[in-house]
């Protein structure tokens, strides 16, 4: 449990907030794809923490940025934090996106609130000399986030459901055989239907990772609230804990149906 100080907190799109915080002590270890587990208010009014992916870390200034959508009561309370407020945070927690140093080209795929973790990942991949192409999908232009920031690390392809920005349709629109042939690896985060579609398209073509979302109780492996179906080490299918064994899983291990 670390206490962070809010250093910046602004709206960057419709219902989308960017919150930057500064570690009061040492910056803890972090890797792309991990999440923070955040207490959104004191007292007993809203007990459970809320998981939010880390989006960007600036180690020099010990600043960490998250980007989140106001979706319900918890994120609404979080959005009320003001500059200077202190934030009670667990983490970064969970399994990260593994970086394969031998790769030449990585395909990043983010949908909606699955886009934020792609930024730190793109930065670290680019830092290792791996070429990055990012496909991002949003409902509409109003919800679009982080396109400029991601462009700093490679090409960004944009899809929106209503065509108000980039190509109309889903992120899978861009996943042509041509593009896939160039990619050594993919990394995806977004809503389940998107991840399931990505898994189908990539199957037998490109290896990669999916970052899953599930409602969490504890965030640290205690409650078994956050499980998702996946292949177990023994080959059978069972529930695995997204908070502790994930949120990032090898794509071929994740089971979406049945």
């Amino acid at each position: 449990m670390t206490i962070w100080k809010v250093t910046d907190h602004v709206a960057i799109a419709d219902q989308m907030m960017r919150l930057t915080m500064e570690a009061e002590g040492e910056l803890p270890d972090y890797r792309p794809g991990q999440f923070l587990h955040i207490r959104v208010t004191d007292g007993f009014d809203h007990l459970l923490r809320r998981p939010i992916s880390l989006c960007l870390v600036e180690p020099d200034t010990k600043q960490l940025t998250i980007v989140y959508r106001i979706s319900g009561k918890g994120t609404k309370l979080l959005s009320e934090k003001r500059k200077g407020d202190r934030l009670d945070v667990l983490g970064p927690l969970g399994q990260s996106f593994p970086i394969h140093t031998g790769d030449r080209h990585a395909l990043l795929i983010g949908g909606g609130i699955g886009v934020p973790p792609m930024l730190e990942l793109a930065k670290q991949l680019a830092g290792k000399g791996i070429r990055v192409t990012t496909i991002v999908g949003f409902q509409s232009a109003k919800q679009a986030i982080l396109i400029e920031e991601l462009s700093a690390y490679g090409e960004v392809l944009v899809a929106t459901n209503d065509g108000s920005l980039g190509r109309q349709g889903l992120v899978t629109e861009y996943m042509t055989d041509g593009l896939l042939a160039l990619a050594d690896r993919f990394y995806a985060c977004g809503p389940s239907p998107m991840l399931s579609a990505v898994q189908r398209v990539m199957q037998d073509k490109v290896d990669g990772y999916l970052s899953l979302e599930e409602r969490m109780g504890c965030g640290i492996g205690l409650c078994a609230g956050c499980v998702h179906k996946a292949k177990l080490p023994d080959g059978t299918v069972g529930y695995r804990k997204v908070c502790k064994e994930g949120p990032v899983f090898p794509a071929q291990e994740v089971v979406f149906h049945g």
Partner: protein
Amino acid sequence: MDKRVDMSVQIADLRLKNPVMPASGCFAFGKEMADWYDLSLLGAIVVKATTLEPRLGNPTPRVAETPGGMLNAIGLQNPGVEKVIGEELPHLRKYDLPVIVNVAGTAIEDYVETAKRLSDSGYADALELNISCPNVKCGGIQFGVDPIVAAELVSHVKAAIKVPLIVKLSPNVTDIAEMARAVEAAGADAISMINTLVGMSIDIAKRKPLIAIETGGLSGPAVKPIAVRMVYQVAQAVKVPIIGMGGIMNGEDAIEFMMAGASAVAVGTANFVDPYACPNIIAQMETWCREHDVERVADLTGVARKQGGFLVADRIR
């Protein structure tokens, strides 16, 4: 200032160095928590429900937030007693503390078999019998809400095991004192209470329950007054020690349960809010005792009961 408080308590044959243990299902099998602190700090550890066969558990969402509490419907997910004995329990022997294993089942036979194997394994210092599942799926028998079937189950399990038997009561009953008396008479060495209250939340945007299987168990501070009342009531109905739980978030809450009649306490939901909840609660209890000139924490058990106290059930409201 430097006065030492005797924090030890006795639950049946078990001597605990302090009265605080994690509640079943809120601590998995201990491995995860061991990343955060030395488990030897705890009075005891209660691990997740174990069943004879592996259980997949329920579909998600399994948890939901409620005012001052949460709902869960994990569905007893566990790898089955064989793997629990083989893979989950042995590491706990590294720590200096009694291991209590929560046992669930669907019929007397599988309860007995699971309990016997755990008792024989040498990895369980006590068993906690989870009869709190008011569930027709449990073989059609409502162990947790019917004193006669509960007593029958308890006596069978008791006869099959060598370690102390703690029976965990459900709060979803009209008369919890009657349940407590029945399981005591059937051989329970201690009672733990309360399990969760059956609740539901509806996502009004989606027009359906938030929990996939519709209902879940309510825990957290919201239920504390109900839990304290039930502990108070049961403490007057039975002689065996009580492990009290339900919404304990800090040392004062724990002391409230002891004063109501508990000999020890368990902490569930609080671990999700703060991984250090248990060690913090132990420290807070000790500080409170020191500041209030309590030499032995065990002396607090039941002090809220009036002299010549009447049975609370006789004059509710």
